């Protein structure tokens, strides 16, 4: 499997029930188990009440009212948001090199948003009222409530991404219809309803515009806007308040999304021998981008640390002092610093790069962003402006159910990829066409034996 020419057969390889392999089944089993365990935990939570979590009330309740559920919610939205930005950038800025992973990034966005949406439900005391209470008063609450903005924007992004993905899939599915399994015929039929070749040009242009919209809205919505605004607009929490949270969240979105894409791409490449499609070159490039956004991430953290300790108000100082002493802040920062150092080193000495290390960097960044975001949520509530309740300080350690939610949603996202990869090509035809067009860099190193094949296993 050295210098192969990518062809349609390559991207069709995963599709169809008959293509199910033992490793696939094993991974399916593991992912379902992770998801299943969490579902059981969640049902138990619904049964007994949210007291099964490690949460309590802030104030005299001696705890925090938002914890890992919200931290992980932010994390998934970040991955999703970064994913779609990545894919839009590929289409808009002609970053053709990354075309083979663009669709994976879009799919990661859909999966990530689903996981985030799921977290909203899991986090609630009365999820059954979601529709009646939220939609019923939408016209009033949309004016004020950042939480309503969140739900709106998440829904909007989900629809936007699904449309985007759907449009490009029409092209592929029509072209490759004959090789696709008949079993899913109805699905393909629906997907390609009313397709004619004439629309290609129009679709191309539409996709471009949607991509533009996504890029323009990126700093305003999701992790550039409404999600950080959940926190940044509350002046009574010095750890949260302030204009920097928008940019800070955006860097988190981009670092974690690139990491996510690295892991997913690697998994597919390994599983389907796609080293000529998702080339080393792509990993090198993604890693560089990861380094760049890690740098931004750390830079904005530094801004906050400086402003929060130099001559800050008493409450702000307390919030910053906690960061400088709490392992849940320090360790993630060191992890990102480490990743950044490694990526810098690879630019100086390219031989330091290998995919295993790239995977390691991605995993570290994902862990770091999850922990940092959870710390951010919790510590905000630990150090409010009205910091008087010292006899009932906020304590928090996530319960087993909360912890299992992280594995559960990773399992859920893995299942999403496992299922969708059986239905439609996860690499777009355009990418193959493109690769064939200017193919020629056959440089190839032998696959190192990786102990784990999939993102979820690595993360787990």
């Amino acid at each position, binding site marked *: 499997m050295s210098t192969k020419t990518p062809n349609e057969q390559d991207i069709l390889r995963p599709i169809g029930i008959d293509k199910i392999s033992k490793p696939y089944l094993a991974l399916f089993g593991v992912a379902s188990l992770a998801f299943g365990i969490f579902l059981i*935990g969640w049902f*138990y939570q619904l049964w*007994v*009440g*949210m*007291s*099964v*979590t*490690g*949460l*309590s*009330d*802030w*104030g*005299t*309740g*001696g*705890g925090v*009212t*938002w914890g890992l559920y919200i931290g992980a919610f932010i994390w998934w939205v970040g991955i999703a948001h970064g994913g779609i930005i990545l894919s839009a950038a590929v289409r808009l800025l002609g970053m053709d090199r990354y075309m083979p992973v663009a669709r994976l990034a879009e799919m990661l966005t859909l999966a990530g948003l689903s996981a985030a949406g799921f977290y909203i439900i899991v*986090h*609630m*005391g*009365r*999820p059954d*009222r*979601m529709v009646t*209470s*939220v939609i*019923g*008063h939408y016209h*009033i*609450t949309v004016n*004020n*409530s*950042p*939480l*309503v903005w969140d*739900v709106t924007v998440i829904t909007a992004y989900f629809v936007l991404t699904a449309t985007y993905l759907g449009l490009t899939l029409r092209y592929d599915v029509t072209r490759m219809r004959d090789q696709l399994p008949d079993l899913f015929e109805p699905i393909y039929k629906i997907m390609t309803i009313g397709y004619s070749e004439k629309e290609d040009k129009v679709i191309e242009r539409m996709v471009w515009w949607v991509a533009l919209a996504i890029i323009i809205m990126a700093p305003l919505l999701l992790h550039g806007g409404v999600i950080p605004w*959940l926190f940044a607009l*509350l002046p*009574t929490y010095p750890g949260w308040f302030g204009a920097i949270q928008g940019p800070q969240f955006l860097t988190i979105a981009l670092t974690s999304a690139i990491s996510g894409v690295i892991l997913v791409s690697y998994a597919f490449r390994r599983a389907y021998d796609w080293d000529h499609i998702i080339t080393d070159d792509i990993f090198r490039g993604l890693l560089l981008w990861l380094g760049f956004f890690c740098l931004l991430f750390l830079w904005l953290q530094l801004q906050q640390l400086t402003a929060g300790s130099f001559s800050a*108000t*008493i*409450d702000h100082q307390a919030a910053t002092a906690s960061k400088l002493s709490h392992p849940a802040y320090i360790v993630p920062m060191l992890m990102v610093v480490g990743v950044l150092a490694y990526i810098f080193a690879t630019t100086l000495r390219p031989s330091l790069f290998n995919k295993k290390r790239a995977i390691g960097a991605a995993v570290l960044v994902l862990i770091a962003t999850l922990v940092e975001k959870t710390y951010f949520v919790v510590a905000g*509530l630990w150090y*409010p*402006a*009205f*910091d*008087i*309740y*010292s*006899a*009932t300080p906020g*304590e928090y*350690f996530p*319960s*087993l*159910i909360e912890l299992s939610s992280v594995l559960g949603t990773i399992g859920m996202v893995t299942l999403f990829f496992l299922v969708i990869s059986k239905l439609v090509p996860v690499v777009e035809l355009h990418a193959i066409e493109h690769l064939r067009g200017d193919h020629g860099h056959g440089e190839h190193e032998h696959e190192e034996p990786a102990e784990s094949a999939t993102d979820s296993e690595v993360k787990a």
Partner: protein
Amino acid sequence: MSTDDESFHPLGSEWEDELETMLDDTEYDTELGMQMAQDAFRVSKGELSEAEFHEKYHDDVMEEFGEDERPTKEAYQKMQAEASEEGTVSRMLSKFEGDGEESRRDAMKKMGAGAAAVGLGAWGTVDDGPEEPPQPSAGDTAAQADEDEDDGVQWGMAIDLDRCDGCLTCVSGCASENQLDSGVNWMYVLQYDDPSATGEGSELARPAGAAANRLVRPCQHCTDAPCEKVCPTTARHTRDKDGLVLTDYDVCIGCRYCQVACPYGVNYFQWDEPDVPADAIKEHYEEEGMGDHMTDDRGRWVDSRAPRGVMSKCTMCPTRQDGQMGEGQVGTTACEEACPTGAIQFGDMNDPESDPQKYEDNPARGRTLWRVNPPSADELEEDLDGVDDDLESVLEATDLEEDELTLIKAVDIVSDGLYDGDEELHSHDLDYHERNFREALDALADHGLDHDSEEVLVGLGLADETDEDEEFDGPDERDAQMELEAFTGSPDSNFRLLEEYDTNPNVIYMGQQPGPNAEQTEPTGTGARYEQLSYDTVTDGEIQIVDNRKDVLDEDTVGGGLFS
């Protein structure tokens, strides 16, 4: 007094100077105020129409007071219809406010200073030519402006921290009334250390001496409540009729954003099934003929402990305010009723005659009313039977000490009058104490002791002796006030919590303000510890009061023993 100088005001330039000084003391534009006052007079003389007056000042008022639209035509006509013979400045001024309930409240607060600035107090006396310059205070005129405006009720509290004994009776009183779970301390009292606390001002407030730094902490029922703003469902809302911030337990989805957005940490989520079933609460209160203690007059479930999965917090007892628990309970809360020291004064913050407003106006007076218990009229009558009516004999014959009588009379002197209605009153009403004071004084007067006479007042140190050629000019209000303050002190400061965040809380505190370095100490409360308290539920169970709710909730946490 002169009318021939250049001044516009019938009371002359002296009065204008006073006005100007007053204006200088407010945050509002002196020149504007003076000019408005001048033109207001022209309106009264018919030289200027009210409409013109509004036309002229609308923009300025907007800029100065930050309010709002000028009167609509309908509003203007309505105003005309309602107008009494002599238009008052306050009524005219009030037309500058907008229609929104909130802005109206706000406007009225701000109008206070403005109304004072234009010499509202002197208004009514223009025609007859006043004998002496009246002395309107900003408070008085604001009050008057408030009355003019049928502004609706805004329930709230004045809390005298110096009077708090830390007995936690309010905490258990609230828990019992609302059948709260362990650790759900809607009302909470905390004690704290504060390097910036002076500790001054509280020594005299209680017979027991200076109190520790304490904070009595209900929900602040903010006029601009951040909790309400962020709620994604409108479950957290302000009740239009009386400004209470409530949670509709049938709408809340339990996202807990309100708890996050509230700066004060007063929210309690119902993490699991509450200990006392709703049916039991309903049954209990219905048996007492008090409604179900859950549904308010609008039919929304906002009172008592929350069901599982939704948010709760101090409600300030909406079903009481709706009269469901009897007319006598309107204007009271469970905590106020429970507090033995009168530290909690609940009432309508828009009504200058309400307990919290009167108490806050003159805390020394309020404290004295609570601390001095005059003998009843009957007792006095009995004791005084056949006794001479001079001061000395009266004091000798009764249980009244001289300093007690001094304080009672001093309260009378500094008051605009002591309550003399015949409503059913409770000992937690300020009026109840006023009535006791008045009845005691009346009993003495009936006996023949003229406590308004020079002899008695001078004897009690509440008036200056006059020379023979002078006419006695009544009691000395300042002396009276000094007597009260010498007895029970006056709070160090008067504040609302975290005012800088613009939440406009409806709880006013008197006493030590916790500084930014204030830290709660343990155990809380000198009188009692949380863990020593409990209450009996309507289901004949007993619920322990707990300081730190986490201790209770941790029992359910699925930790697998990993983190314990």
